[in-house]
């Protein structure tokens, strides 16, 4: 249907772009038809012939006929529409940014839409049920706006936009989990939406979505020229008398619109938008128009296929498998496989944080910082809320025995993550690199979820730290394996992180979609809590963090050289590969240790090194020490806030730290761009 429209809409298409597509299009359309029929066979009990007759039998009140017409058929049409919209939206985004890692999922629009809808559901449930698209669109636009602001013009084509998008995902995810945890029962039904499900009961959503996707036809009709010009580079385009920015902005908004309405209609379905354009290129789509059109069709094929699998799986097991989870389960490994050759170390575009301040930390500064640290530590230990209001005194022995393990854990985690952050940022020469981005925490969490699933226990009791540790080490193994082929290129490492986090998200959404009390236990753990840590674990973590931190201090010279450039490091006779592996292993160990004891904490490893740099710790050694101190203090404060904020309930320290640091981080970046 879309094909005929668009071919009529762009008569100026050069002939050369048709030839390679001659065989590709009929084949893909045939595949689309086949998967469509197969999907209908799976989704309805009628035979093909009966289905054909049912299409024209408007008077029938037979339930199976109606089930086919009002449930199975709209589901297929919905899959077709949403798949096409996501494919087109992804292709448009990737061509606009000239970045093959960009998609609604990776630049934060999906999580922005999700948070928008969560907020709307909690504030005005009836309104959200009726007009969910507006809060979703608003959320998506705000999130992407900030991401673009962070990445800046130069960063759009490279890794920065993806890293900024991931940071945004982490922050919005933390805020959404916090809201959901606070609102327990009310939020249950959101989980299924979060997992993305295509089940339909009538044509309502199709009718709702169809006119809103008309934008897609306009894109197909008019986007070809600006996108082709864009390939020449924006200077080249301007030379031809075209100012690209207004056009790009409109196209960008159109792409966001497609994503937002799709998400409102069916929930979060990741990966289709990311994978489809990449596959389209792999199958030979070359020109701008070819890529847009082919991605549209291919997106439909992909989503229908995964949804058919989801329906099949739901019939085999008694549980409902959400379509979005199925898409991500297939998409994450596929993405890794697709991009395995294409990343290289030179994918480094300029992105700086306000760290180049002409200031060096003085001995007096050290004294001040250390005494402030002690004062804050003491205050977080002694100031607390009780049944009788606020109290400022040294805790009783019993309360002390309950309080010190969590406080020590928080401080040690902050210490460790900050050191890991410094090493990683210097190693990858990327100020946005952070331990969470390598996917180490995601790996640990995945392993934990799996072990809970296999043993049938809750996430708190199943295997615990051991499973988490195994998960992190497995990710490290994958990183080293992939990394060796690419000289440990930052882009590759980030890609593994993205894939793992998306995979984690899919499995997580699937586990959460059940909406039972166990879902909340999982969310509680994912929030990064020091609550359950025993005295032994706390001491163990502290010792481990200090030892690993001590070892990494030994490599400060190598780290200084690498952070200047590979050339300088090589020139000084450094074995670059070996030192990269060593440092990477140290970082992974640190993350595995912290995550296995207290769950994931985002942003801290990103932010602590920056604050250290702002305070004037420019060389590696002082930066390591100062960042570690700051990391501990930040975590102490977060733990304290978590204990007193919603007393007698408690907020997990991980969420508090992620939100506090994340917001500060965004403000920092935005301020720098605006300045």
């Amino acid at each position, binding site marked *: 249907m879309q094909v005929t429209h668009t071919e009529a809409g762009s008569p100026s298409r050069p002939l050369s772009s048709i030839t390679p597509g001659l065989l590709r299009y009929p084949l893909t359309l045939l595949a689309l038809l086949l998967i469509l029929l197969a999907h209908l066979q799976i989704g309805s009990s009628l035979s093909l012939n009966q289905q054909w007759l049912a299409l024209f039998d408007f008077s029938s*009140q037979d*339930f*199976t006929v*109606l*089930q086919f017409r*009002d*449930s*199975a058929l709209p589901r297929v049409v919905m899959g077709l529409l949403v798949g096409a919209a996501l494919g087109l939206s992804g292709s448009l985004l990737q061509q606009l940014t000239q970045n093959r890692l960009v998609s609604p999922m990776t630049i934060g629009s999906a999580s922005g839409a999700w948070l928008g809808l969560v907020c709307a559901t909690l504030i005005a*449930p*009836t309104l959200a*049920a009726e007009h969910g698209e507006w809060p979703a669109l608003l959320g998506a636009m705000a999130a992407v706006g900030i991401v673009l602001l962070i990445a800046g013009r130069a960063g759009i084509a490279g890794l920065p936009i993806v890293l900024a998008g991931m940071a945004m995902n982490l922050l919005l995810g933390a805020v959404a989990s916090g809201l959901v945890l606070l609102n*327990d*029962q009310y939020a*249950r*039904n959101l989980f*299924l*939406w979060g997992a993305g*499900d295509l*089940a*339909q*009961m*009538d044509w*309502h959503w199709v009718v709702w979505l169809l006119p809103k996707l008309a934008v897609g036809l306009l894109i197909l009709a008019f986007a070809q020229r600006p996108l082709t010009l864009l390939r020449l580079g924006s200077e080249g385009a301007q030379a031809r008398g075209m100012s690209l920015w207004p056009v790009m902005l409109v196209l960008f908004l159109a792409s966001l619109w497609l994503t937002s309405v799709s998400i409102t209609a069916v929930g979060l379905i990741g990966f289709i938008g990311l994978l489809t354009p990449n596959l389209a290129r792999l199958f030979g789509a070359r020109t701008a128009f070819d890529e847009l059109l082919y991605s549209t069709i291919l997106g439909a094929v992909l989503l229908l296929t995964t949804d058919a699998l989801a329906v099949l799986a*739901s019939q085999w097991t*008694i*549980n*409902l498998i959400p379509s979005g989870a199925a898409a991500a389960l297939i998409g994450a490994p596929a993405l890794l496989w697709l991009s395995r050759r294409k990343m290289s170390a030179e994918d480094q575009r300029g992105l700086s944080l306000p760290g180049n301040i002409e200031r060096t930390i003085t001995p007096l500064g050290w004294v001040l910082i250390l005494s402030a640290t002690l004062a804050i530590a003491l205050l977080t230990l002694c100031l*607390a809320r*009780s*049944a009788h209001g606020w109290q400022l005194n040294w805790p*009783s022995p*019993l*309360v002390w*025995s*309950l*309080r010190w393990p969590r406080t020590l854990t928080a401080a040690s985690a902050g210490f460790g993550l900050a050191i890991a952050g410094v090493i990683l940022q210097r190693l990858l020469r990327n100020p946005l690199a952070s331990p969470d981005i390598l996917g180490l925490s995601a790996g640990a969490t995945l392993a934990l979820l799996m072990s809970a699933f296999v043993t*049938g226990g*809750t996430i*708190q*009791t199943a295997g615990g730290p051991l499973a988490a540790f195994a998960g992190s080490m497995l990710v490290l193994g994958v990183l080293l394996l992939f990394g060796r082929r690419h000289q440990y290129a930052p882009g590759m490492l980030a890609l593994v992180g993205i894939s793992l986090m998306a995979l984690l998200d899919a499995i997580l959404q699937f586990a959460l*979609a*059940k*909406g*039972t*009390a*166990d879902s*909340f*236990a999982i969310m*509680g753990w994912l929030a990064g*809590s020091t*609550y*359950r840590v*025993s005295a032994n674990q706390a001491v163990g973590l502290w010792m481990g963090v200090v030892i690993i931190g001590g070892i990494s201090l030994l490599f400060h010279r190598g780290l200084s050289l690498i952070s200047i450039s590979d050339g300088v490091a090589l020139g000084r006779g450094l074995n670059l590969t070996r030192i990269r592996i060593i440092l990477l292993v140290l970082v992974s160990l640190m993350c595995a240790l912290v995550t296995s004891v207290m769950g994931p904490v985002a942003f801290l490893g990103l932010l602590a090194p920056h604050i250290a740099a702002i305070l004037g710790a420019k060389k590696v050694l002082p930066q390591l020490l100062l960042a570690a101190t700051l990391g501990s203090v930040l975590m102490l404060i977060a733990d304290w806030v978590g*204990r007193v904020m919603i*007393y*007698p*309930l*408690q907020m*997990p320290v991980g969420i508090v730290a992620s939100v506090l640091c994340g917001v500060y981080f965004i403000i920092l970046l935005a301020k720098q761009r605006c300045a």
Partner: protein
Amino acid sequence: MCLRHFTHRLNGALSHCFVTVLMLLGSTLAYSAETPQRVVALTWEAAEHLVEMGITPLAVADADDYKVWVVRPALPEAVLNAGSRVEPNLELLAELKPDLIISSPALDDLRDKLERIAPVESFDSYRQDHNNYETARQNYLKLARQFNHLDQAQQRLAEMDTHIAGLRQQVIDHFHGRLPEVTIIRFSTPAVAYVYGDNSMPQYAMDLLHLKPAYPLPATAWGITQKPISELGRIHEGVVLHIEPFSQKDKLFPTRLWQAMPFVQNHRFATVRSTWTYGGVFSVEYLAESLVDALLSLQPE
């Protein structure tokens, strides 16, 4: 003589032992006879059981949410909030100085910490591999024994059984002895519903009312399974009851497919007022009450 002396000594020793044993027994008995006064319930099931026994707990985890979601039996106003059910506030518990903490296996990893505060009693809760209702019943009796309320507890259970038997008779009379098969659902979205299957409290309530499931589902931990709503079309004969609340009625009920559902066509669909479905033993009684009210609103065939 010697022998007598020996037996005397033996007797003495034995009686000494006996006395010691008695004393020990006495002290443990005295300990257990001293019924706990300051009790904290970290699960809602335990809170329900305590309140049904006439005991006001000092604090209950997520007490505020309990008042919104469980509702019956009503929690006295004075009950404090002990933090969340997943992460009870340990420091608050320490400050409250309870003499008994009622926990569940889900909180087993906290046992060390809890025991530092007060003796801990852990009661099994919802699981896939046991009968959730029978477990709740046993838990209630065990708890009653601990508080020396066994007689009252047994009486309360007997009352419940009589009450349910009365309700059962009402249903049998209403349907002239031909009981319909029943399936209970809770809507999640206009396209997906939770169906209560084996091992769910609503199904145990149905069992006690002698109602058979119209859409049998295997046992799960909480007894619920998510299903697309169109699946419900497989229920040809039975009755479908949905438990309130469902905010998106307007999006589902007018649709053609919903209207074509056999149970809608035959007017075998009714609404059950909002009732907690993951509770303790008496939640089955309240559920039976609500279910029967809904069933009586249907026309007998």
